[in-house]
């Protein structure tokens, strides 16, 4: 019987010694061929699985400690997370490409396919993409652009970016040239205008969901959260996602989910990568850290403590992403002694030990900053290096003629906030105190308040020196200079600095649209900042996101925005 023959053959294989030589060779050949076949089959199967693309997860779960502060309407939203969601639900005329560093070549077409500026810098013309539809199928055209900007400036919500940044200071009028051409007429040339157009506050709204209720724009026209009505809770509609659900309990987000917009104009390029986004909200960084470690979320973004980041870097199940983050700086009150003296401000700037702060407080996960304009951005120079870092001999040299020495130390208070508004503020203050006192001629008293009280103290101008931080609005050196050292633009800092030369340089830099000329002007501004020393840049931090290892497409760049539609996870 066949079965017994096969059995016999198998027995023969293992008892090959007992067989004749000829039979043994034949069996040997059979075994080799059999092994080869098995190897080829296994290789084929393995090769197949290695070469086919991994399946993308339909739903990506994101964890955050953020929450929408007020609403998802560009007329009011001015908080980080609110604008990040706006960015996923809407589209701008132009945007920064992923990986942007803050230079002119970073701009990419979005709803506008091309643009141009008049020679006098007063008229910006945008040619719009045709055939773009809102999520409800309505066609987008130039009147929507005019509507969006006139609405934002008309509502003029004091909480919103249209007032905060001051759109009306630049924009005179908007003209619909044709269905797909729109022109912005400016009051004065503004070199950062494209950056402003790329900013989330400039994303285009759907007039149908952002109507005017009266005869003129009113603050009550702002689209606010409506329980159980996610579409009515946001006026966007041109973005990669639509808002599927949004629940708030007691003014805080408890649940949010996004789903791919079927009418998204860039859907043919494969965006959004993840078809659904579910956002889970955590009360604090400890909760978020536990959630990403436990695998409750695929990606965690804002805010994770730097100590958690350090341990996560060595966790094989996690991937840590980073990019440029906030900058922090020291302000000095020039209204009264001791910082009404430029030499004293310079002496303090020279004594600061940035390297020690970066190494001690942030374990090296930050960079020393020597100008207010961040590293890598147009206009950045290491201007403050001329004063040195922990340059105690220069500090002593500057203070000695003023009567300050080891026996009569310069005394002042250094203030910091305690609400976690900035990372590790208390540790920063301690290291700064220690580095300043290491000069031997400075004595620092530390003072702290929670954020609300700190803001009041700043407004009352009672703080000698105080640590603040900055996240940018639009990505341009102007957003790192004008709000700080221009006499009216920087008035919110309450440090009472004003210099007409500085104002003039800033005005020229703002009005210029040539990149090289602007770089030169910002270099001069940086040098004047060192000379006057109204503000001392300290460090540039990193923004961190942490994901499971199967997540790709996280881009953290100079824009410091969170591009959800690029992120995906494989099964």
């Amino acid at each position, binding site marked *: 019987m066949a079965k017994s023959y096969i059995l016999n053959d198998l027995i023969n294989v293992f008892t090959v010694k007992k067989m004749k030589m000829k039979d043994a060779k034949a069996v040997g050949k059979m075994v080799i061929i059999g092994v080869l076949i098995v190897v080829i089959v296994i290789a084929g199967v393995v090769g197949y699985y290695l070469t086919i693309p991994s399946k993308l997860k339909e739903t990506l779960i994101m964890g955050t400690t953020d929450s929408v502060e007020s609403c998802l309407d560009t007329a009011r939203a001015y908080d980080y997370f609110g604008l990040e969601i706006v960015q996923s639900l809407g589209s701008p005329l132009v945007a920064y490409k992923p990986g942007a560093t803050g230079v002119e070549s970073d701009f990419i077409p979005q709803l506008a396919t091309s643009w141009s500026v008049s020679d006098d810098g007063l008229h910006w013309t945008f040619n719009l993409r045709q055939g773009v539809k809102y999520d409800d199928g309505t066609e987008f055209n130039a009147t929507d652009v005019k509507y969006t900007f006139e609405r934002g400036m008309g509502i003029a919500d*004091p909480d919103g970016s249209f007032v*905060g940044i001051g759109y009306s200071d630049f924009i005179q009028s908007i003209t619909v040239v044709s269905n797909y051409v729109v022109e912005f007429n400016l009051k004065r040339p503004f070199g950062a205008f494209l950056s402003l157009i790329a900013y989330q506050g400039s994303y285009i709204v759907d007039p149908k969901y952002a109507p005017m209720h009266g005869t003129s724009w009113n603050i009550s026209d702002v689209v606010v959260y409506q329980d159980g009505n996610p579409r009515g809770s946001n006026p966007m509609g041109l973005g990669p996602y639509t808002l599927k659900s949004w629940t708030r*309990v007691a003014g805080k987000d408890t649940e949010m989910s996004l789903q791919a917009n079927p009418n998204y104009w860039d859907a043919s390029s494969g965006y959004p990568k993840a078809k659904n986004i*579910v956002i889970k909200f955590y*009360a604090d960084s400890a909760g978020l850290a536990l959630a990403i470690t436990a695998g409750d979320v695929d990606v965690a973004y804002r805010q994770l403590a730097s100590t958690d980041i350090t341990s996560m870097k060595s966790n094989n199940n996690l991937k840590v992403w980073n990019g440029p983050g906030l900058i922090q700086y020291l302000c000095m009150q020039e209204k009264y002694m001791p910082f009404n003296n430029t030499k004293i401000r310079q002496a303090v700037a020279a004594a600061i030990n940035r390297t020690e702060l970066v190494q001690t407080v942030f374990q090296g996960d930050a960079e020393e900053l020597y100008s207010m304009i961040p590293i890598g951005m147009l206009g950045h120079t290491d201007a403050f290096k001329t004063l040195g870092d922990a340059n105690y001999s220069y500090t002593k040299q500057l203070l000695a003629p003023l009567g300050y020495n080891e026996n009569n130390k310069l005394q002042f208070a250094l203030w910091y906030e305690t609400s976690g508004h900035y990372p590790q503020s208390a540790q920063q203050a301690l290291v700064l105190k220690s580095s300043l006192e290491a000069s031997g001629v400075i004595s620092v008293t530390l003072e702290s308040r929670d954020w609300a009280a700190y803001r009041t103290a700043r407004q009352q101008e009672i703080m000698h020196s105080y640590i603040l931080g900055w996240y940018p609005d639009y990505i341009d050196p102007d957003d790192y200079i004008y709000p700080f050292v221009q006499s009216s633009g920087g008035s919110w800092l309450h440090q009472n600095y004003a210099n007409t030369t500085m104002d003039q340089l800033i005005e020229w830099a703002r009005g210029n649209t040539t990149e090289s000329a602007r770089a030169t002007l910002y270099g001069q501004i940086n040098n004047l900042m060192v000379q006057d020393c109204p503000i001392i840049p300290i460090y540039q931090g990193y923004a961190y996101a942490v994901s499971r290892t199967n997540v790709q497409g996280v881009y953290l760049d100079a824009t410091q925005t969170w591009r959800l539609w690029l992120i995906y996870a494989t099964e």
Partner: protein
Amino acid sequence: MTLRTYIISRILLTIPMIFILLTTVFLILRVLPGEPVLLHFEKMENPAAMAAMRAQLGLDKPLWAQYFDYVVGIFRGDLGKSMQDYSPVAQQIFSAFPATLELAICSMIIAVLLGVFLGVESSKAYNKPKDQVIRVFGIVTYAIPVFFLGMILQLIFGVGLHWLPVGGRISPTMEPTGLNIGNFHFSTGLYTIDSLLEGNIYKFVLTLKYLLLPSLTLGLVLCGIFIRLTRSNMLETLRLDFVTAAKARGLKESTVTYSYALRNAFLPVLTMMGLQFAMLLGGAVLTETTFSWPGLGRYLIDRINFRDYTAIQGAVVVFGIFVSLVSLAIDLLYAYLDPRIRL
């Protein structure tokens, strides 16, 4: 004093108590440095816009006028509008309160059941190793900070074993809808009950999974005092004649302990439950933060950071009323169980 007079007098006493609480919070907030309007102007300060906002929020009026407006509002049942996002405070508190209530009830159930059971077992094994272990357990759980215990449980059951979620109240998009029959809709905001009303067992189990760690944390921290109290009362009760008599009649030990002795030893525990409810709400503030639980405690912390005067006042008033009502209910129960109270 009849029971009705007793109830009326207790309710009347609650009103001035809430008033004193409200006035104190109102004044403390105004004395504290920090102003809600300033926090709306994170990067720029526009004096005209700030003045307009102050007027809109009623902060430009003299203090007595602000107080008068607020009290009049309270009598009309209006807790005012949030100074952060301009939403009605009553609505916000109403949306957050069920989460806190659910957490408080579950925590109290765990604390009482565990505390009383261990207290009884401890008293039965007086001075034996079992008694010593339970006493140490009681002291440790009472002394341990609630956020620390919470994080330990999160690390064990969430990160280590992956059994339970580390935070939140339920998975996104899984919120129970409650009872829905045609156009009739009814929900309590308590997810355990709403999921049952919806008839969705999966959501019910999911709700319990999210609820378990925070309530266990709070329950464990609170159970220590119930262990101590039950133990000491049981030790006294077990020595009484009626217990000896019950034993002599040949009743089972468990019947004697739980049906006879514990019933008598339970009255002080009941009083403690009322007192502990205030503690529970204080603990809920920390527990809600640790477990990202969207309740009133977390709301209060957020609003303190923002100096949202109306929201803080509203939350404190609701906390005050809640504690008063629970205290009243406990007193009534006490009066019902022990008629001497009414005499």
